[in-house]
């Protein structure tokens, strides 16, 4: 066995695990309280997380506009609760996002992000579009370099950023977070952090099923987000919710998984969906009538009822239409004006992989939105945005382990929180973590065995000649999840899936040629833990939860709100699983 993995000891006040949007916002806010703040990031904060190469929209309550409409903050909250979450939501956390994201957008502006436009007719010179809600409430902004700007701001404030360290273990002492361990993905060293408080913000659990094109890495959500945060929390005995909601693939632009709100799915105007003959499947959207803002007060309740009953913006199930022989479908912007097409291209360029995608589309395919149409094809499966999975936290984002906060996509229970969720939860978690760190005198002791045991397992993989390549194990896990936690699930098949996952675990002795491959092996370990949670939670939820959740149990076909309108939490207790139901406040 190779020995002598060097251990780097880093002591800080607030350790932020994962430097995406939420992590960077937490670090920036925490730095205001005179504490030492450190971000541990698996890749590089300049490009990591769901907004690594941009995010261009974020919903908010915008007083300047919404007060004129007569649309209240409670209307926004009700829209989100009813239209997006169907009541399946932690409303207290939603309220935090709804109340505070406008202020966070103004903070982003201070950090150099452009959110106002000279040609805008909208108060504040903002660009505001429809997204999920009955009224336009999403800022559209220049977000392609947001992570570069947030990194710069964090550094300016003295935040220490440790890039290329994958965190794998959270150390808890007497019910309080005390330390965390990671592995250097370039240098192969073991990083042992001591901190007074912690923010968990590693993002979503991806790579649980194969990509729809078969090209590894072609997922909507960044593929290095392997649910490391919830895996760490789960191993440390914390509860994780909503893991059963692994959804079927949606439809979006082409085979190129974009990580952007594609035209007609979310924000942009002018986009229609048509069939091969040019017949309209979904009519085109329009810009809001801004010159007439405030002329008529909105009836929020009526608008919600209309939308719930299938009015404006209702999306059909393309999968179902396909099964009826009604494909192929095309994203159709050919009816758009020059202004609209320019707007859409600007919007695409600012989000997700859109910048590169647009360049590819124009320069490698010679595509023109004015005349050409793009086929609408299925996406890879992913953890559902409609029932966000993750950690259980209170209104101050603190978990049941004292000193451990959650933020962004690592927090469960706030569907489609997205960028606004990351901005607001990150900010609040950073503030709370800093204040608590300041109040705490000393570090808690950590169990020295955990460092030794990680050292041993990493050395084992690096020294192994006969272990398996990470990709071999990953494929096996993905196939099990895809088949047994598929579109329709049932007790017997789920149990078989768990048996097979156990069998994979027994055979999963890894080999790693270098620190890069070691990272991938550790990612697959996260994937295995997440896969186990998906299968176990699917088995425990003995009901079906229909659209938009798409959770179907063949043996429990009815939705049972009386017993199951609750978040299902699972946790490890003395090597056994324990389930509990967290009632949802209506």
């Amino acid at each position, binding site marked *: 066995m190779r020995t002598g993995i060097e251990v780097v000891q880093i002591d800080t006040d607030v350790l932020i695990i994962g430097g995406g949007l939420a992590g960077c916002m937490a670090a920036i806010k925490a730095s205001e309280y005179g504490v030492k703040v450190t971000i541990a990031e698996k890749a590089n904060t300049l490009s*990591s997380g769901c907004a*690594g190469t941009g995010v261009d929209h974020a919903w908010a309550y915008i007083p300047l506009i919404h007060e004129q409409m007569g649309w209240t903050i409670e209307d926004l909250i009700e829209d989100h609760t009813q239209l997006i979450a169907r009541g399946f939501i932690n409303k207290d956390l939603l309220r935090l996002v709804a109340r505070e994201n406008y202020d966070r957008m103004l903070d982003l502006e201070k950090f150099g992000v452009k959110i106002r436009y000279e040609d805008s007719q909208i108060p504040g010179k903002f660009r505001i579009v429809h997204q999920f809600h009955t009224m336009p409430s999403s800022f559209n902004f220049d977000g392609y370099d947001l992570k570069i700007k947030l990194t710069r701001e964090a550094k300016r404030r003295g935040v220490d950023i440790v890039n290329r360290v994958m965190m794998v273990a959270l150390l808890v002492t007497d019910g309080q977070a005390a330390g965390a361990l990671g592995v250097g993905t370039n240098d192969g060293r073991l990083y042992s952090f001591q901190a007074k408080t912690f923010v968990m913000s590693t993002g979503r659990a991806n790579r649980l099923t194969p990509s729809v*094109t078969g090209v590894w890495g072609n997922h909507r959500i960044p593929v290095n987000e392997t649910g490391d945060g919830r895996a760490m929390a789960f191993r440390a005995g914390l509860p994780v919710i909503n893991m059963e909601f692994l959804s079927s693939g949606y439809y979006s632009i082409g085979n190129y998984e974009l990580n952007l709100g594609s035209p007609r799915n979310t924000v942009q105007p002018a986009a229609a969906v048509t069939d091969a003959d040019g017949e309209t499947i979904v009519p085109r959207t329009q810009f809001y009538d801004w010159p007439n803002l405030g002329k008529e007060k909105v009836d929020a309740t009526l608008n919600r009822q209309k939308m719930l009953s299938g009015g404006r913006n209702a999306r059909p199930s393309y999968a179902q239409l396909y099964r009826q022989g009604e494909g192929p479908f095309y994203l159709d912007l050919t009816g758009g004006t020059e202004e609209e097409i320019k707007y859409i291209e600007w919007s695409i360029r600012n989000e997700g992989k859109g910048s590169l995608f647009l360049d590819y589309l124009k320069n490698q395919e010679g595509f023109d939105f004015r005349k050409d149409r793009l086929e609408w094809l299925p996406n890879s499966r992913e953890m559902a945005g409609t029932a966000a999975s993750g950690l259980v936290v209170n209104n101050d984002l603190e978990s049941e382990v004292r000193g451990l906060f959650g933020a962004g996509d690592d927090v469960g229970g706030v569907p489609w929180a997205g960028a606004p969720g990351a901005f607001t939860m990150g900010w609040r978690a950073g503030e709370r973590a800093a204040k608590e760190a300041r109040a705490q005198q000393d570090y808690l002791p950590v169990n020295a065995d955990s460092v030794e045991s990680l050292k041993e397992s990493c050395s084992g993989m690096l020294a192994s000649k006969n272990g398996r390549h990470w990709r071999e194990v990953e494929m096996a896990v993905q196939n099990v999840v895809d088949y047994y936690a598929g579109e329709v699930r049932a007790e017997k098949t789920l149990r078989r899936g768990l048996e097979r996952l156990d069998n994979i675990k027994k055979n999963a002795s890894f080999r790693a040629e270098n620190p890069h491959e070691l990272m991938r092996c550790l990612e697959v370990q996260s994937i295995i833990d997440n896969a186990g949670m998906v299968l176990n939670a699917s088995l425990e939820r003995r009901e079906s939860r229909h659209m938009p959740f798409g959770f179907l149990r063949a043996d429990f076909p009815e939705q049972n709100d009386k017993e199951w309108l609750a978040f299902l939490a699972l946790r490890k207790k003395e090597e056994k699983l324990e389930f509990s139901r967290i009632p949802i406040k209506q």
Partner: protein
Amino acid sequence: MFNPVIFNKDVCTGCNICVDVCLMGILEASTEKGKPPIVKYPDECAYDGACWMQCPQREKGAIKIVPPLPMRVSILRGEKP
């Protein structure tokens, strides 16, 4: 398997910013100063384009990302408007 990232060695200055920002850590700096990086793990590309976006020589064509055939979009071509 695929060759997702193509450098133009006549334009690339070997600054290695792309190596730093690569989400997946698939690039490795060349041992020769001023030369383009090596694409060490081409089949772990995430096609997010961070390397391309942050390349200081992008406009001059130092770096090109080429999606493999299964990822290329399906287009219905129309008439010139």
